[in-house]
């Protein structure tokens, strides 16, 4: 049988928790995976050795992994990964990498997988308005959505092999432009609080920001809000023509729940909706729905959450 290989997800120079979920997904495909950790400093890979279920950790060490370049990363990983099925996280960067590695090996890629049953993989299509199940008949590269598979427990101890690799960078970064705010991007956050046109004015987003800062959330927006107000940038937009997110918690405030917004957030683990219109479609998707104006609900939410975090 061929190998199953997990490419560790790296965030802020360390192994991201979703890597443990990838190990569970890999086990669902059969076997115990090899974890490849792209790194510039091999000590980063040590954290992967404690993920139970992995057979081996390879610290793939290269200057290429300093910052992301699709061509460089794909060639450097391909050079050291054995033949077999490869799993990555379904973040925008890792989906790009998955597609590139698959093309390099002349195998197929299946993105955004949320369920694995034998050789059958299920992913959302039409932005989550339907699900598609496909059958594999050979090795493939698979990207797996976060917060879907249980994390493999820690406490294991497998060997870490440090392997030097290299690849040719095709692009060159001229400059990094740090985000003005310290707040997370919606694509990276585990909790998102989003506002729609029901917020009345972009100035009122400060109330969402205050809650976001209390609980470490990102602030998002509906397309209606982005299209209406110049002050709300497209980078905040959640929905079919914005970002598709599936955080642990999504709080929708003053968002009616247009089909194209739902498409971008319906797979969130828990959804809270605050809207003054009891008939708003968003309530059909909410785990907790509050029929109220944001002016009434947000101060209560803010003070309660602040009390909990204190």
């Amino acid at each position: 049988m061929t190998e199953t290989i997990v490419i560790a997800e790296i965030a802020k120079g360390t192994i991201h928790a979703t890597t443990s979920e990838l190990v569970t997904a890999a086990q669902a495909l059969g076997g115990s995976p090899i974890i490849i950790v792209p790194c510039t400093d091999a000590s980063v890979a040590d954290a992967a050795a404690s993920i139970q279920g992995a057979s081996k950790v390879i610290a793939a060490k290269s200057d290429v992994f300093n910052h992301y370049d699709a061509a460089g990363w794909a060639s450097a990983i391909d050079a050291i990964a054995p033949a077999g099925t490869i799993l990555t996280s379904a973040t925008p960067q890792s989906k790009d990498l998955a597609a590139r590695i698959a093309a390099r090996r002349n195998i197929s890629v299946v993105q955004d997988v949320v369920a694995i049953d034998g050789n059958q993989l299920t992913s959302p299509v039409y932005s989550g308005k339907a699900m598609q199940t496909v059958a594999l008949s050979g090795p493939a590269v698979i990207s797996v959505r976060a917060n879907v598979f249980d994390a493999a427990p820690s406490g294991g101890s497998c060997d870490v092999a440090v392997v030097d690799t290299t690849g040719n960078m095709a692009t060159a970064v001229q400059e990094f432009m740090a985000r003005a705010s310290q707040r997370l991007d919606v694509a990276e956050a585990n909790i998102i609080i989003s506002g729609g046109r029901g917020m009345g004015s972009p100035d009122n987003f400060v109330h969402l920001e205050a809650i976001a800062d209390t609980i470490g959330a990102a602030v998002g927006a509906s397309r209606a809000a982005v299209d209406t107000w110049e002050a709300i940038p497209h980078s905040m937009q959640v929905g079919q023509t914005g970002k598709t997110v599936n955080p642990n918690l999504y709080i929708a405030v003053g968002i009616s729940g247009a089909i194209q917004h739902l498409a971008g957030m319906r797979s969130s683990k828990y959804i809270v909706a605050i809207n003054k219109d009891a008939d708003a479609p968003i309530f059909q998707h909410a785990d907790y729905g509050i029929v109220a104006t944001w002016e009434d609900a947000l101060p209560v939410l803010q003070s309660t959450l602040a009390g909990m975090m204190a």
Partner: protein
Amino acid sequence: MVNIIVLVKQVPDTNAKIVVSGDRVDLSAVKKVMSPYDEFAVEAALQHREANGGEVTALTLGGAGADKVLKDAKAIGVDHIVRIDSDGDHDSNSLQTAIASVLSELGAEVVYCGKSAADTGAGSTGPGLAERMGWASVSNVISVAFDGGITVVAPSEGGDARISVPIPAVISCDKGNMKVRKPNVKGIMQAKKAKVEVKTVAIQPSSVAIVAHTMPPAKPAGKSYEGGAAAAEVARLLRDEANVI
């Protein structure tokens, strides 16, 4: 003078309701449109032509019904429209192999595409084609500038990065701050008369086969509350019941 190709795909209108009939989606009653991100790719391709000279070819893959998306691109201002004739589903490997062969045949130097198509949402085609062609690629691009080469801005951890991209390259476009131009009357008239060049390519069999489409699992009804004061109770449930705070 740059030979620019823009990939466009026909997809169901993103506001359409998707219906599953038997074990497949039934799109027969659904309006078809250009995938939204492809509109930004067309715009970037036209801006590239205006900056550096050259010609833009819109390329799609599909049956005769997909000619409409090419005509739409023509109305916006592309020079040539080409369709790879194919019905049916292909996995990424078969699809990209076919498109890559046509890119070579057309002498493509720069390829623009949307960051993902609104039907699959996969986003595999751009980077996959770049790898097959041995080219550079940048995905999720939010701004493009031309200075002989291409300079793009794309998200990077904690912010954005300004990146120099050598030609040849594939650029996958997000919305960013790009304003797309609309077709004018002259463009629409020209598009009506324009002829689609149809290419026939042998497409290899897929190793990934669609088994079934299903509707997403229905969510059990949630708890509902009236009045803003309930936010305190919801906050407690988020901590104690959902364990997400």
